[in-house]
């Protein structure tokens, strides 16, 4: 890792933190992406769920905003086949719903709150992800 990559990692992480603090300050909500977006998967959505849609629009339009200020579209190297994509997607959706959170809700916001549930969740998903990568290499 060179200095530029470390600087970008620290700046990007700080922006993520800033976003989480801003959402807590304005709406009093945790920035858990799986929680925010899965709240939209309901047949009886009402006006109080509009913020979820707005957050999702912001998240989706990040690359376009980045492009607009002179950056390039994010590099997304994804050489996995469709079988992997579907299996991975199903497991990520199922697991985050069952475990009440993902990398953002547990990994960032939960650890920042020193929540014992989130600390355990983060250690567990890091461990199974490391083993999965090790076995699939």
């Amino acid at each position, binding site marked *: 890792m060179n200095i530029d990559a470390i600087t970008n990692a*620290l700046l990007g992480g700080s922006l993520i933190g800033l976003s989480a603090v801003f959402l807590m300050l304005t709406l009093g909500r945790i920035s858990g992406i799986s929680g925010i977006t899965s709240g939209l998967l309901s047949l009886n959505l009402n006006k109080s769920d509009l913020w979820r849609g707005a957050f999702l629009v912001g998240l989706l339009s990040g690359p376009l905003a980045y492009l607009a200020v002179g950056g390039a579209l994010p590099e997304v190297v994804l050489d*996995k086949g469709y079988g992997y994509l579907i299996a991975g997607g199903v497991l990520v959706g199922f697991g985050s719903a069952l475990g009440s959170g993902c990398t953002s809700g547990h990994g960032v916001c939960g650890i920042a709150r020193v929540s014992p549930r989130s600390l355990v969740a983060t250690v567990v998903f890091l461990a199974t992800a490391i083993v999965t990568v090790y076995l699939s290499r």
Partner: protein
Amino acid sequence: MKEIAALIAGLLFSLGLILSGMTNPENIINFLDITGNWNPALAFVLMSAVVVTGVGYRLVWKRSTPIYEVSFSVPTNRILDKRLIIGSAIFGIGWGLVGLCPGPALASVFSENGVKVLVFIAAMVGGTLLQRAVSSMIERKAAVSVDG
């Protein structure tokens, strides 16, 4: 105003993921590949995000309410149950298989690999709905056995 605040938060989150390279699954896989060509970037991202969030949350919580809501909606559950452990374990396997999780997936729909990312997102939605179906089935069975 609530929606504008949420839009800004989503956009900032997305820009943070893009700037830090976390929208690239290759960087995630190389972080998880501790015995191979290890790339520590994710650790720096997580560390700085946690520090900023931790300090910021404590400052925000000095207020009695958020700006646009009547109260804070922060989880209070502190019980380590099976659902949490099993769910997180399953989530980690999916994350390791592809190198994508919900935030980065949604923040890279507009990229050169958008179609593949959309397939992943569709499967993710399917997995979430499947979990709800399984949970409500188990709860119904439990209710029946209690009644009987």
